[in-house]
């Protein structure tokens, strides 16, 4: 599955403006130090997570919430049905925003917009 996922990704000719060579080097060094085991274990345990918390099926999140996603985030695209139900599953969802032309790393790609949305949300909780 991982191979298929990797094959479906394109390799950019140059880094995007929000990711410097220095940032990439740091991330590479960290993965060289730790290996991929920790990150992959997260995905290996998806089914187990579900089994251990099956009692949460149908539960609604009542806390005030803000949803921010990227238009081109594969996680957003894969979970469109779930996102469409957020107003029902999170009754206190204050706002949902899909940032245009943005992928998974919204904080890096759109820091100004994300910070603005977070500050606005946090102020609304006072």
């Amino acid at each position, binding site marked *: 599955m991982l191979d298929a996922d990797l094959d479906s990704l394109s390799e950019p000719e140059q880094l995007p403006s929000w990711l410097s060579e220095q940032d990439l080097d740091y991330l590479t060094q960290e993965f060289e130090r730790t290996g991929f085991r920790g990150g992959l274990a997260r995905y290996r345990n998806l089914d187990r997570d579900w089994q251990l*918390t099956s*009692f*949460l099926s149908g539960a*609604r999140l009542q806390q005030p919430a803000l949803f921010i996603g990227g238009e081109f985030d594969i996680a957003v695209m894969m979970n469109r049905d779930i996102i469409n139900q957020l107003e029902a599953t999170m009754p206190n969802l204050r706002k949902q925003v899909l940032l245009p032309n943005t992928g998974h790393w919204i904080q890096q790609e759109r820091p100004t917009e994300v910070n603005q949305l977070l500050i606005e949300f946090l102020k609304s909780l006072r």
Partner: protein
Amino acid sequence: MLNTLQHRITQHQLLTDIRIKLLHLHKQLLDTERIRYEQVRGQVSNGELLQLAIDDDRFAWLHHLSESIVQIDELIHSDEPITSEAIAALIADVRILLTPDEAGNDFAVKYDAAFQRSPDVVLAHADIEFIANSYAINGLSK
């Protein structure tokens, strides 16, 4: 087929496991109630918290959980043999009690609110669910 001694040891182990998990859940719930109380009334010492847990109305709903723990203690220390029916009934009672419901009885509503406030409560609940589910599927054999 387990012999009588093994059977008793396994019963005690199961009850002890549930008891420990319930105590952990009780602590997590007490912590969430403490935070809520301190947000309004200011910081309290551990001694003051103990007093609040005993006789303050805001903490009274937790007594139901304490009673379940006491019930397990009594079973563990009983001189009489523990029946499978008694264990099954106890686990069923615990599961009924620990059912969060925003439109349920007083305990269920407050338990649901604690679920919403604290992921630690959810994880403590998951531990109990795990034991109860294992017992429902496997009985006393692990």
